[in-house]
C-alpha cells in the first residue's frame, strides 16, 4: 500500500483521507456490485496533481478509481474492483475555463456539475445537450464520458457528442489532448490565436476521444473537457403526444428527428413521467392515473430570426404528419403540462434524485437498439418482469433516440426498496435475466456495468481482444480501475 505521506505530498493535507466513514462512502453504491473498500480517497485540485498520482500508482502498481460526480452513484464503476485502490475524487476540480458563444463551446474541469454550468451557458446565450434530469451532483464531464444519452438527438451528430476535446493523462501518466486541442503547442499557445478546442478529429489518424468514453476510467483520467454547446432559443414551444400504441409515437418521433424539427425529443411511459414529477408515492399514483401508457415529448424552438414563424411553420407541418399517423398533440398529458416538463428537463433534477424518490433505490437496465426490434424487446422485458414477480406496470421506460435517429437508447428503470431483501434480490435477478434475454433479442449493451459486463463482453470476443491490446498501450501497468469494462 502507498505511504499516505506520498499522497499528501502531491495533493496537500486535508485532501487525502483514510477515515473509515470516508472509505465507506466509496466502498459501494446503489448497484449490486460487491462492496470493496478503498485504501484512500484522494482529492486532487489540479491536472498536475492528477499526473503525479498516476505516476505514483504506476510505480507501486496501485489501482486508481477516478470519480468525478458526487454521490449517489449507481453503476458500480466508481466502486473499486480490487483491494488497495485509491479513489481519485475529481469532484473538487470545478474550474470553468470558458464559455464561448461564438464557437459554441465550453471548457470545464471534471468536478463541474450541470447545475453549475447551465447558468454560465445561459448567460452566454448557450445551452448544453443534457441527459434526462441528471442528479444535482452529476459531473458534466462524467456524464459525457459515460456516453449518457442526450435529450436533443438532432444535435448528436456522432455518438461522442457533445464531447469536443479532452485533456487527460493516460494510465501510464503521459499527458494527451484529443482533437484540435492536441496542438500546436499548449492550450495557452492555442488561445493566443483564438483556437477554442472545438474540433474533435485526430490528431492524426486516430480519434482517441472515443477511447476514453465508455471506458469507466480504465484508460486514464480526464482533467478537462471542451463541450459542444447549442444556441439558446429565443422561443420554445413544447408538446406532448400520447398513445397506447408505442409504434405510433416512435413513427412520429423518427420523423420529427429526421426532419430536424425538434430539439428535446423522447418517450417516457406513465411510470417514469409520474416519477419525474411526483413528490412522494401518493403523488406518483395520483399523477400516473391520469396518464396514458406512453407519452412522447418534443420541443419546437425558434432562434434569432423570426422565431414565431419557425415554430408556426413546424407546428403546421407536424399537424400534417399527425394526421397521417393518427395522433394528436397536446400541451399537456394528464396532470402535467408540456411547459412544466420543458422547465424540468432543462435543468438537473431536484434532490432527492427522482429515481430514488419512490422507493429509495433504483436499477437501470439500458441498451441501444433499433426501431425494428424495440417493441419485441419491450414486450419481452415485461414478460420477464412478470415471471420474476416485478410488476410490469411498475417498470419505468425511457426511449431516447440517439445520433440523429440512427438508433434508440431504451432504458428500463426498476424502483425498489433497498432495505427489502426480497425486492432487491428480485431486481438483481431481473437485471441478470433481462440482460441476457434482451441480448439474445438484439439489444446492444454498449455501456456494460456491474456483474453483467462479463456476459456482454464475452459476446464479442474480437472487440474484447482488441480493447485489451489497446489497454496495454495506454495503461501498461493496469492501474486504471481494474475489474471494470473487460479489463
Amino acid at each position, binding site marked *: 500500500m502507498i505511504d499516505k505521506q506520498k499522497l499528501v505530498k502531491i495533493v496537500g493535507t486535508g485532501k487525502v483521507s483514510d477515515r473509515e466513514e470516508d472509505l465507506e462512502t466509496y466502498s459501494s453504491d446503489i448497484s449490486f456490485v460487491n462492496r470493496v473498500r478503498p485504501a484512500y480517497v484522494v482529492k486532487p485540485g489540479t491536472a498536475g496533481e492528477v499526473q503525479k498520482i498516476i505516476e505514483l500508482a504506476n510505480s507501486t502498481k496501485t489501482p486508481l478509481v477516478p470519480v468525478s460526480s458526487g454521490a449517489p452513484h449507481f453503476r458500480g464503476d466508481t466502486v473499486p474492483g480490487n483491494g488497495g485502490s485509491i479513489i481519485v475524487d475529481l469532484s473538487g476540480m470545478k474550474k470553468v475555463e470558458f464559455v464561448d458563444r*461564438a464557437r*459554441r463551446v465550453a471548457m470545464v474541469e471534471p468536478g463541474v456539475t450541470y447545475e453549475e454550468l447551465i447558468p454560465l451557458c445561459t448567460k452566454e446565450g448557450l445551452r448544453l445537450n443534457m441527459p434526462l434530469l441528471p442528479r444535482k451532483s452529476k459531473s458534466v464531464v462524467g456524464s459525457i464520458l459515460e456516453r449518457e444519452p442526450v435529450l436533443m438527438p438532432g444535435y448528436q451528430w456522432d455518438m*461522442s457528442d457533445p464531447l469536443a476535446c479532452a485533456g487527460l493523462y493516460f494510465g501510464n501518466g503521459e499527458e494527451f489532448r484529443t482533437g484540435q486541442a492536441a496542438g500546436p503547442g499548449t492550450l495557452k499557445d492555442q488561445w493566443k490565436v483564438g483556437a477554442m478546442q*472545438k474540433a474533435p478529429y485526430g490528431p492524426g489518424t*486516430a480519434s482517441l476521444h472515443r477511447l476514453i468514453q*465508455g471506458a469507466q476510467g480504465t484508460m486514464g483520467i480526464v482533467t478537462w473537457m471542451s463541450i459542444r454547446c447549442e444556441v439558446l432559443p429565443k422561443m420554445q414551444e413544447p408538446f406532448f403526444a400520447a398513445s397506447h400504441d408505442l409504434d405510433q409515437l416512435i413513427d412520429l418521433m423518427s420523423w420529427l428527428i429526421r426532419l430536424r424539427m425538434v430539439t428535446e425529443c423522447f418517450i417516457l411511459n406513465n411510470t417514469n413521467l409520474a416519477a419525474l414529477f411526483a413528490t412522494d408515492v401518493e403523488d406518483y399514483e395520483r399523477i400516473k392515473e391520469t396518464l396514458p401508457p406512453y407519452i412522447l415529448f418534443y420541443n419546437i424552438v425558434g432562434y434569432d*430570426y423570426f422565431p414565431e414563424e419557425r415554430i408556426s411553420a*413546424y407546428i*403546421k407541418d407536424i399537424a400534417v404528419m399527425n394526421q397521417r399517423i393518427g395522433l394528436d398533440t397536446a400541451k399537456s398529458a394528464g396532470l402535467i403540462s408540456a411547459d412544466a416538463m420543458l422547465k424540468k428537463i432543462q435543468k438537473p433534477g431536484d434532490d432527492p434524485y427522482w429515481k430514488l424518490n419512490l422507493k429509495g433505490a433504483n436499477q437501470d437496465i439500458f441498451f441501444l437498439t433499433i426501431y425494428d426490434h424495440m417493441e419485441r424487446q419491450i414486450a419481452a422485458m415485461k414478460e420477464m418482469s412478470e415471471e420474476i414477480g416485478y410488476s410490469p406496470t411498475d417498470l419505468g421506460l425511457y426511449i431516447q433516440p440517439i445520433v440523429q435517429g440512427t438508433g434508440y437508447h431504451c432504458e428500463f428503470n426498476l424502483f425498489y426498496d433497498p432495505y427489502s431483501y426480497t425486492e432487491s434480490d428480485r431486481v438483481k435477478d431481473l437485471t441478470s435475466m433481462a440482460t441476457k434475454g434482451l441480448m439474445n433479442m*438484439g439489444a446492444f449493451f454498449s455501456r456494460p456495468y456491474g456483474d453483467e459486463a462479463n456476459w456482454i463482453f464475452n459476446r464479442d470476443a474480437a472487440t474484447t481482444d482488441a480493447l485489451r491490446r489497446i489497454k496495454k498501450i495506454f495503461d501498461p501497468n493496469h492501474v486504471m480501475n481494474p475489474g471494470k469494462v473487460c479489463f
Partner: protein
Amino acid sequence: MALSKDIIRELEDVVGEEFICCDPAIMPSYHGSDLGAVVLPENTAQVQAIIKTCNKYKLQFSAVSTGWTGSFKKDIVYLDMRRMNRIIEINEKNMYAVIEPYVITAELQAECFKKGLHFNVKGAGSNCSAMLRGHGHLDQSTSGDDRNHLAIEWVTPEGEIVRSGALGSTDEWFCGDGPGPSIRAILTSAVPPGVTPGVFTKAAIKLYHWAGPPKYDIQGLSPKYTLAEVPKNMMARYYSFPSVEKMWQAEIRLGENEICMELMGFNVSMVAANIATCNEDDERIFKQLDKEKKGPGFFVIIAGNSDNDFAFKKKVLEQIVKEAEGESMKSLEDPETEGILIAQCTRVTASIRETFRAGGAFSSIPIMSQRDLTIKWAIGAGEAKLPLIKAGHIVDDGGAFFGWGVEQGHVGKTEIFCKFDPANEKAKAAVEKWSKEQGRRAFDESYFALMMGEVSDDIKAKMCHYDKWWIALTRAFDPNDVAPQGGPLV
C-alpha cells in the same frame, strides 16, 4: 523481389487465377508502382485469407478502392477492392446504409434518393468510395470526416475480423461504439493506405433526409447537363460579401439558425470550374465572376421539407445575407445555372473540374477544424499564392481559398489549392515551396498542424506526440508489419 511462384499459387488458390496479376503491363495503371501482385478479393473471407498469406510470408499489403491517388511500397500485395461493390442494406427507418468498399457515392446516392434519403458526398467526388472518411460540400447538414461511420467490419492486419459496436455483439449495423470504449477511435477511415491498417470490408454510414426529388430530371448532353427545373422547395445562390469578416458572420448565423442544406465557401474560381465545360470557358467565366463579385463569398443550397419550411428558410437566409451586406450574384441566379450547380453540388461535387482539369495537377492544403481560425490562416496562404500567379506558375484564381461549414457551422473545413501543370518543373517547385511554407506557418503560428506525408519531429512533439500512440496501436495489431502506412487516401 517478385513474389515467388508458391506465393502466387497460394493467392490464386484463394481468389482464382483470373483475379490475380503480377504482369508488369498493368503496373502503370496501378499508380505506376512496382507491385508484387494485384489481387481482387470478392468477399471478407477472401480478404482474410489473403492477409493471412501475407502474414505467413511477411509480405506487405495495401487495400484500395477506386484509388484516385496513392503511393505504395515496392512489391506489396495490392488488394484492388473492385469486386467488393455490394450495397448490403439501406435501412430507411434507422437512417443508415451498409456498403462494401467499391460502392461509389453516385451509386449509393441514386438508391438513397429513391427513399428520400441521401448522405455526405465527399469533395473527392461521387466517383469515389461511399465508405470514404472525408468531407464535402454537404457537410453543413450531413456532417463529415469520421463522424458518419457507424459499425465497421474490419479485417485486421493479422487477418482477424473485428466488428465494431453493435455489429460484433448483435449483428446490427446501427452503432459502431462499444461495448465499452469505442474501437472507432482507431477505425477512422475507410480503405487504406495511409490510415487504419487492415481492410474495411463493410461499413455502415449515416443517412440523412433528402428533401429533393427521387431523381433529377436532367436535360441536355454531356458536358452540359441542366435540370429541367429547379426542384420544388430548393434554391441555390452564391452570395458575396464586402469582407471575410462579414462573410464569416453570415456563415455562422446561417449555421446557428440551421438554414442551409449546403454551405459551400466556394471562391468564384471554383464556381466557374463547376459551370464551365472546358478550360477556356473556365477562365472566361472566372474573369466575369471575379469582376461581378463584391468580395469573398459562399454558395448555399436551401431545401425545405415543406412549403412552410422553405419559405421560412428563404426568408431567414435573405435577412442574414442582408445584415452582412452580402449580395446574390445575379449572373448565377438564372434557373439553368442554378440547376447546374444544384446537380453538381449534390450529386457530383465536381472535384475533377475543380482540381485536375485546369493544369493536370493540383496541390492542396486542407484542414478540418475550427473554421474561423483556419480562415485566418488561409487569408495569408492565399496572399502567398499571388506571386505564383503573377509568375504564371499556377492557375489564376485570385489567390483565393475556400471551405465550408460542417454540422451547421460547429466546425468547418478550409482548403486552398494551387492548380498547375506537373510537367512544368518550375511551377512544380514553386508550388511545393508554397505548400511547405504555408504548412509550416500554420504550425508556427499555432493554427493547426498538417499531418499528411512526412511530419517533422518538432511538429509531432507539439502535437502531444500523437505519432507515438499511433505507432504503438499499429504495432499492437500488426505484429508482422504487413500493413505499411503510405500516401493519402481517396
